[in-house]
């Protein structure tokens, strides 16, 4: 008997204690306009204790090819996605968070776009949903349905661009990118794991497109989402951006990108420092020193220019962090 054809699309769904919402994600996956056998769903049960895995497994009749990967211990979103990717066999791969869902036909539309445009990956808009309030969030690239150079969507630094739209779930990717490690998330990172991921895609992939999809995907607003919680996981923003700095430093056009990196580091760093009042004192100190070291690792003329145009509060927070880093070095 001939081996079954590989699926067209694999969807990696990392899920931790999502038993009350994951059914919505999975129901939406049954309505994607793909024939049976074209879709592979890889649900990664990341150490759930509420029966998430069982809820997912019950969808097997409706989602042929459903694979449930179980981590007995929670490893975090980045590692869960990597784990799922390792089990993916589809030509194209994408991600869906357990508390989100897709509109009907979305995956078929993105797969069709990749077929037609023959680029490495596509990105899309999304809609945030809070209760019944729905707001369309556009990917910050207005050129649609045409093949673009990913490096052409990194600048300018003064505005939000595609490297500021780092959501892995807002697109679809040729699985061949995985062989170059371009789809791997930094293991063990619990915050901002998608920043180095999106930077690496835009620096190293060759062609991409932003497509309008009639089935724009939906993101549920949630009080427990990581953007609201403040704890020591926030510290991972430092190693996440250290990777971004490393990626840019190794790039042949680093000088083009430094202003953008400086802008992002100042913005994200001061955002976390502003909220650090809710952290423990030692975490707060570690965050300050970390951000300071990050800023000091950037070309200082670029940093100076960025701080000049930054607002007073950001300038104050960043300068204090830089001082803390310098003192930390002296002490050590």
């Amino acid at each position, binding site marked *: 008997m001939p081996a079954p054809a590989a699926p067209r699309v694999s969807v990696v769904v990392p899920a931790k204690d999502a038993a009350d919402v994951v059914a919505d994600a999975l129901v*939406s996956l049954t309505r994607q306009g793909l024939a049976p056998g074209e879709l592979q769903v890889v649900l990664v049960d990341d150490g759930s204790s509420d029966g998430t895995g069982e809820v997912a497994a019950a969808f097997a009749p409706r989602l042929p090819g459903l694979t449930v990967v179980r981590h007995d211990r929670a490893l975090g979103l980045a590692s869960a996605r990597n784990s799922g990717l390792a089990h993916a066999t589809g030509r194209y791969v994408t991600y869906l968070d357990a508390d989100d869902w897709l509109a009907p036909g979305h995956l078929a539309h993105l797969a069709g776009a990749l077929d037609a445009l023959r680029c490495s990956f596509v990105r899309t808009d999304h809609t945030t949903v809070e209760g019944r309030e729905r707001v369309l969030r556009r990917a910050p690239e207005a050129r649609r349905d045409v093949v673009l150079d990913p490096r052409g969507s990194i600048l300018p630094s003064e505005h939000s661009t595609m490297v500021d739209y780092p959501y892995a779930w807002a697109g679809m990717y040729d699985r061949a990118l995985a062989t170059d490690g371009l789809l791997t998330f930094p293991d063990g990172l619990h915050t901002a794991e998608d920043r180095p991921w999106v930077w690496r895609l835009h620096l190293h992939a060759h062609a991409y497109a932003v497509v309008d999809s009639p089935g724009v995907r939906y993101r549920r607003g949630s009080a427990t989402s990581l953007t609201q919680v403040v704890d020591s996981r926030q510290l991972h923003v430092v190693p996440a951006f250290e990777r971004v700095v490393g990626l840019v430093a190794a790039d042949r056009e680093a000088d083009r990108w430094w202003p953008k990196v400086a802008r992002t580091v100042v913005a994200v760093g001061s955002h976390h420092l502003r909220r650090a009042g809710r952290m423990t004192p030692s975490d707060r100190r570690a965050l300050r020193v970390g951000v300071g070291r990050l800023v000091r690792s950037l070309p200082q003329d670029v940093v100076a220019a960025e701080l000049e145009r930054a607002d007073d509060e950001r300038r104050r927070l960043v300068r204090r962090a830089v001082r803390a880093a310098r003192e930390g070095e002296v002490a050590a």
Partner: protein
Amino acid sequence: MTQLVLASTLFAAAGAAAAVDAGLLGRPQERVLLVSNAAPVPELAPALDEIPGCGPVLARFDRVVHLADLLGGLHPHVWSPRDTDLPVLERLLRTVWGLGEGPVELVVESPTVNPAAWLARVLRSAPLTVHSDGLMAYGPWRREPALHARQRLRALVHLDLVPGLQPVTTRELGFEARAVPAEPFLGLLDEMAQEARPRWWPDDEVPTALLVGQYLAALELLSAAEEAELHARMVRRAAAAGARRVVLKPHPSAPPGLLAPVRAAADREGIELVVVDDPLPAEVALVAHPPALVVGCFSTATATARTLLGLPTEAVGTELLLQRLEAGNSNRVPVAIVHAWARGLAGDRLQEVVDAVAYGMQPRRLAAWRERAVRTLTSVPDDERGLYVPRERLTELALPGARGRPPHERRRWRRAARRALLSVVQPLVRGAVTRWRGSGHAARVAALARGAS
């Protein structure tokens, strides 16, 4: 005249289609069905024209257009255009929906709720007919329609689920009620059953009860645990009535967690449980394979089963619901009707109770109904009074069954009491202060006088 009929569920569209067959929706040149998907998460539920079995319903219309094509990911209950944009929108809608330049007539479900509300604002002079599919047809609207809508209300078309019962809205606002008789509706359900052939209904002699789920936890009336227990009670009631099998049709939005307690209850009773995941309205199955019993809370399916099909029905949980529902919640009338039916009320008596419930829900708009409500509530046992109209509302309105004085009277009493107390106490206090001061007072006055000169 082009007639635009808005429907958000297959059941509602079927009701409208039956009204067409009954000649209750006129003879427009063109009848267009406007499909809206009003599920809490529209992306997860099929639109009414995607459900197998919808063919006969769609056949009563010349064309079908979809609101989702216009709104995209925006929720139909939430989006609403600004007033300044209405004329622009009218031109655009006439073009995109092919409504032409001539007069348009609107047939909508709830005229005070979007999208019907903004459609009525856009098509500013369109005569308005309301079609209402369930027991909610008999109750008052939560909000009064805007004047421009009130002025063109033509008729309320509703399924004759409670023969003889007059809807509240038509009497409140002075427009016509048109009840759709059973035959055209049953005939339509039959056609739908022929097309859909619901295969999940077991085809044997085992006495089977249909349990109709509602997902009340979503309305925040019950906790998930209470809802699960309610469903378990339905199973026990079915078993007690002699069913050896129950078919549960959970509400499409109900979470998976609902099923475990139901299964457990069925196991304990030693009866078989069949769970059906079919978006087709339960009523179609009732026509195709009438069960021995229908058990629900206040689902329209129980009313359809009872009135239109003459099937035995049982209501579970109406007392709990009446205790939990806010005084003005629109679900109050459906629950009250089912509750009253279970207590043997019918005919004029049922009308009196429904009107009293309505008065409790909208005491200002229905002020003229107060006297009758008082008479009705006087004749109802006290514990039942507190169910039909919540105790706080009875008290607030000084109706029979009130506990103590109404709040505004209590405030007045407190003020009056305070005044009375002060009028006694103040003179006593003043007198004491005067005497206390008096000894030094004259001396101080004298000293001042010396100082002044």
